């Protein structure tokens, strides 16, 4: 099996999240990945985890990738070559690209395009995830809400199947 991780690590493409949501995203992502604070109110240890969750949320909700020039709506928070993407996530991105572009698309194995597609999917999933996280209920924490959201996404997925 190809090592997808090595493929992405060799690139200088950046992972992007919407600039407009940066402040909200920071509320739910730990400042320093090594120091986990209160998991219940800050459920994501790293921005890449939030980014990946947003992609999957967009897929589960069948949201179209966000349009437009990425640099106009997004902020790069990390470079892919820093090895932030683990093997599983890298493989998933490749699968998503093959599914969304089609296997015969010329850029189906182009890491830059795959990352771009992922960034656009993250761009459309991010606002939905943020909205779910910020739903104000007294007895639930952001962690409760994100898990509940994940469950509902799965149910929705199965229903659609």
């Amino acid at each position, binding site marked *: 099996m190809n090592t997808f991780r090595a493929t992405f690590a060799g690139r200088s493409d950046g992972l992007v999240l919407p600039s407009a949501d940066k402040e909200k995203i920071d509320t739910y992502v730990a400042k320093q990945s090594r120091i986990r604070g209160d998991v219940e109110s800050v459920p994501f240890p790293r921005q890449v985890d939030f980014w990946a969750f947003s992609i999957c949320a967009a897929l589960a909700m069948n949201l179209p990738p966000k349009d437009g020039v990425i640099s106009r709506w997004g902020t790069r928070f990390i470079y892919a070559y820093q090895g932030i993407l683990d093997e599983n996530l890298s493989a998933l991105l490749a699968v998503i690209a093959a599914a969304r572009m089609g296997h015969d698309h010329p850029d189906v194995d182009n890491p830059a395009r795959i990352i771009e597609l992922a960034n656009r999917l993250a761009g459309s999933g991010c606002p939905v995830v943020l909205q779910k996280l910020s739903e104000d209920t007294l007895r639930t924490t952001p962690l409760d809400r994100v898990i509940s959201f994940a469950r509902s996404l*799965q149910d929705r*997925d199965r229903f659609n199947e």
Partner: protein
Amino acid sequence: MLLIKRITIENFVCFNRLEIEPTTNPDMPLTVIRAENGSGKTTLLRAIRWGMYGERALPGNARNFSLHPADWQPDAQGIRTMVSILFETDGSSWQHLEGQSKRAAFELRRTVRTEKTAPGRSDRPDFRRIDETAYLQQQRADGSWKTHDGGADAVVEELLPWELRDFFVMDADEAADYVGGSENKTMDRHQVIDKTTYAVSALLGLDTFRKAEDRLKKISNEFGRNASRATGDRKLAERQAELDRSREELDRITARVQSNVETKTDVQDKLDRARGRLEKAVGNIHAHDQLKQRMADNRESLQKTQQRRRRALDELGAGIFDISLFGALASGEIQSVRERLQPLYDDGSIPVRHVEFVKSLLERGECVCGQPLDARSKFGRRVQESVSQSSSQKEKANWLSDVLDAANTLHSYRDGMAWRHACAEHETELGDLDNDLRELEAVKREIDFKLKQVDDQEVQVSRDEIAMLEKQLEGIQRNLGADDIEAGSLRKKVNKLEGTIRDQQVRAREANEHRRNKSIADLLVRILQGAYASIRGDQVAELDLQMNRLFRQMASNVTDDATAENDQGKATLAMIAKVGLRPLDGDDDKYEIFALNSRERSMPPTEINGASRRILALSFVLALCKASRTRAPLVADSLLNFMSGSVRTNTLRVTAETASQPILLLTGSDLESERDAELVARHAGASYTLTGQWQHESEGGDVLRMTQAGKVSLLCHCGPRAYCDVCERQGQSEKTGWTRRRDGVHRQ
């Protein structure tokens, strides 16, 4: 041995003249003198004590205490106060009355004259007492009287020693000194022990042994010195001098040990009190420690549970970026990829397996069908061309193959069950941990509440005091140990010197007689010591037994052990499991009264309520009289104070049945219950009522028929439930069970 037949008092404070004849009937030995508060009970007791012991029996500064009546009109002659006590004795043992083989009557008469003096400084009285005399006279067979040669005070001291006054003329407040003082008084423990020891030794006759032993030791030493001198040997004389010095040093150490033992008892007593206070404050010391330990354990459990909760949360949180979730959420894309790429894999397009195979055929130059595949043949060129075109797509085909592999792997997460199970597991664990935390928090609150009930500062003060006292005790113990070693080595030295001297004395013929005498004296000392130890052991054991028995009788069937308001929180009779007398730890010649609770913990007097203390002191006094076979009157004031219900009845009954000649000064309220009145009627051979005549209505009292205008107390023969013109009180005639005396008025 001694019975009071008559007490006559003249011009003593509120008594112009008073005559009481206590009963001497052995079947009805109780004499009751009923008197309300302020009617002169305590004054009567003081008069008897003054008659026996003179000025020292008066309270406070005796010189300022006026004995003469308040309404005395001073004149040139002054006024004469007199107390006469007529008593009967069988003269069986006391040395001053030796030879009185038959029953004999004596009269002890004490008089004093009070004169008016010119007013001086404000703190000085305007009177003085002169010509105090006490004399004793004995009744002859023909009924006439003669002065006794022994001297009144010496005989009284012999018969009724001052230190033992509470055994004969008892103010119950003072008698409580035997158990550490009455309600508002605390005595040093060594003073209590000295007082108790004196009483035990004197009444059991143990002090006679000690005195004889000391005397014999002195005689023995004197014989030893004489023997040494008689040999005329210089070295022997030097050794004798060294022996004397060593003995003196030994005496000094013994005195130091004695003093340290006393200090030790005081410190031990303070320690017991501090421990008692601490126990009272926190239930018991261990309970407080256990509470603190539980708190520490609870804190540790809370920390551990919180850590486990954090770990469980971390694991639950990690689920939201786990591939098992992502695989489930992207299952549509994954399925789509599998559907598209699997046919390509199946037909060998991905990865590029066919091209490699055809390449190998090209190298071989022959197809599987047998046609040549070289460049010269048309078929070969076409195959060569196709292979070249396919090679350019090889990388992409291999990529797609890897994508298919990845899709197949991720497909296993499609239903999301792995993620759901993991989540559910973590959530269940979190729920359990939250429950544990809630329980631990509840336990913490409960312990917090209990700990707050205890004033930590107060506990700390007690603990510091205990630590300080324990340290002090340790120091004393060390000193005692060191002194013990020093005394041991000195004793060895003394023994050695004695041995050496004895050896040399043996050689000296002239010393033989002295040596023999010394041996006899030493032998006598040993015999005396043995006898003393044996008698002391037996008698103290008997006393201990009697005391506990009497205490139990007085405390039996007590269900209404009521306590005064200021006694709240103190041990009641029901809490005292055993009382008695025990030799002091480290000094068998000293004794103290003890009370143990059901856990066999010694209860310091400060922990015991007033009624229990009085009963404890009374049981000691009665038991000691019984054990020592002392037959003497017991004039007791305030005996039933602080007592109520069955405790009062029991105490009254035991005193009436145990004391030789009980003369009790009681208030009307002491005799209110039917039980007590019946008890008194059964045991009382004589009863009187003492009435303060100044207590008429306008001054707050309620005597109806005041018979005398002065501030005097009058005595009538009214029994516990009778009244006459002298003592009648308002409302008495309406009370059931009370009767007017048939003989009407008794006047004096």
